[in-house]
């Protein structure tokens, strides 16, 4: 029981971080970022290169991941999403662009890093063992704590900094924010960069535990979509709640139903559909977001 709870918290914290980036981008630009999973994989590979290959300290490698993805996110917003949103007659067109980007990142990752599974040396050795009731390697605990710290600092940033306030205003009402003197184009770019940076950060954190490979991008995007749906699209607290709920469902399902194979996911998907049929806007979303 303790083990399941601990696994749930561990999974939930990392899922919540992935979902945060996705929901932020969605809230600001109404873009469903299909390439989010690929950004996460890219972040993992950057950390792998700097920490695993070049032998930099882990923290510096993590910063490099964040920086790379943030710059990439900013460039993508400025040169791809912003012009397409301006020119297109239906805003769903950005989905094609996002899917194209997902393919593009896959191709780049394939060419630069290859299709092999990559891992890095452990950052901390040893296993925490509480009387065989709760077994958890120290590095997982460290990553979990780091993830929770990042989530907390992200919330504080959104709540109390000037940029965060501008971003929240933008998410609430684009036109009104513009009338209040918010530089919409600039803050859209910052928001997108921030979302991409979160994806890179999670990728960098998780590469120390699960490693990273090319095929992780797509499934990660789907999981992130599910978390965002559970909590409500475009709501930050909803994304966190969705991530934690999915983490716990998975931990419990895998522990209880492991002998039935893939049935855990089938059950999660079906219950998600039933849940959304009853409450279409998720836990905390605005109706018809």
């Amino acid at each position, binding site marked *: 029981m303790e083990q399941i709870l601990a696994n749930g918290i561990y999974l939930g914290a990392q899922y919540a971080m992935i979902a945060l980036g996705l929901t932020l981008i*969605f809230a600001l630009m109404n873009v*469903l970022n*299909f390439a989010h999973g690929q950004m996460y994989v890219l972040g993992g590979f950057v950390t792998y290169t700097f920490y695993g290959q070049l032998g930099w300290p882990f923290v510096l490698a993590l910063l490099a991941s964040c920086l790379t993805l943030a710059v990439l996110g900013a460039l993508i917003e400025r040169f*791809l999403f912003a*012009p*397409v949103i301006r*020119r*297109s*007659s*239906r805003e*769903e*067109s950005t*989905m*094609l*662009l996002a*899917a*194209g*980007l997902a*393919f*593009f990142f*896959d*191709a*780049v990752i*394939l*060419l630069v890093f290859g299709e092999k599974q990559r891992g890095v040396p452990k950052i901390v050795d040893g296993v925490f063992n509480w009387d065989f009731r709760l077994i958890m390697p120290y590095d997982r605990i460290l990553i979990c704590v780091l993830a929770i710290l990042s989530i907390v600092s992200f919330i504080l940033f959104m709540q109390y900094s000037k940029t965060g306030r501008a971003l929240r205003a933008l998410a609430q009402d684009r036109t009104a924010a513009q009338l209040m003197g918010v530089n919409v184009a600039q803050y859209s770019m910052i928001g997108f960069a921030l979302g991409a940076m979160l994806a890179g950060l999670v990728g960098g954190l998780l590469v120390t535990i699960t490693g990273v490979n090319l095929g992780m991008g*797509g499934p990660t995007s*789907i999981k992130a*979509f*599910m978390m*965002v*749906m559970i909590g409500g*699209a475009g709501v930050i607290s909803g994304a966190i709640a969705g991530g934690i709920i999915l983490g716990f469902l998975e931990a419990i399902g895998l522990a209880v139903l492991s002998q039935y*194979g*893939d*049935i855990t*996911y*089938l059950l999660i*998907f*079906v219950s*998600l*559909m*039933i849940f*959304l*049929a009853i409450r*279409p*806007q*998720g836990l905390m979303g605005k109706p*018809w*977001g």
Partner: protein
Amino acid sequence: MIQWTGLAVFLMAIFIAVPSFIAAAGRSDLYYTLTAVALLSIASAGVWLTFYIGRINIGQGAFALIGAYVSAILVTKAGMSFWLSLPLAGLFAAGVAVVIGVPILRLRGVYFAMISLVLTQVVTLTALALPVTNGAKGITSIPLPGGVSILGLTLVPDFATLENPRLAFYYAACVLMVLTFGAMYRLVNSRLGHLCRSMQQNEELASSIGVNISYIRVIVFAISSFLGGIGGAMFGSIAQSVYPSSFQVADSVNFMLNCFLGGLGYVFGPMLGTLVLYFGWDLLFELGRFQLLAYSSLLIILMLFLPNGLLSMRLPGKKGTDK
């Protein structure tokens, strides 16, 4: 008048020019590609129709998989003729769409998009779990479609006895495609099409002037899934096998991309989009490991310059025909 000439030219092209060109060039492998394009464009037409009522549908892979399995099970287990199982597969997919659609069509925007994406996963996992679908091993060695004859007159020959079943499949797929797009064109210009357009613009407003929106969106979703089921069933018959991985999330996404690429405002958009995407991918095969890179870069560039689809490109001096 121009429309009829266009139609005649198109029919001549697909039924006479393309086969004779392929025979002359000796590239009979192209039949498979073109058949796939025709079938995928049928399923994409379904996706396009749900776009027409303002829903982003990333779940067509689910219905294509359902159709493929229903047809495969009917043919292998019940010994039914493929041509009878084809409409049944479509109807079964439509039935599933009605049952699922009643609750989930209440969702809009990204919520519907994401739940339809999840739907593809649900169907794949169900196919893995159910005994009748034979799990991950799938259903293999499905017999080729048999013949159909009425009063001794052979309407469709037995595919297994033909010397070139590829050509037969090509014709069958093209006939289906022409019928589908003919029906789509008719539907879009009918009363139902007008109602759909009103829903695409504003559902509340449409509802307030007496459009039964919940009825229409279920009907449209059922038609869309019917097309998905037909396309999937035919695909399974060509491949002579169905696996849970025959239609995945990536296929669902591709169906949607076909619609976007062709243009959401044009009935024939999905056909063109499928042709360009599928053929483009095949043509870029020459580039080896740079295939995906070139393909995705082209997608992004197309999106940058023609965000409303290929058909939004206007010939100078020609009056646009918005459909």
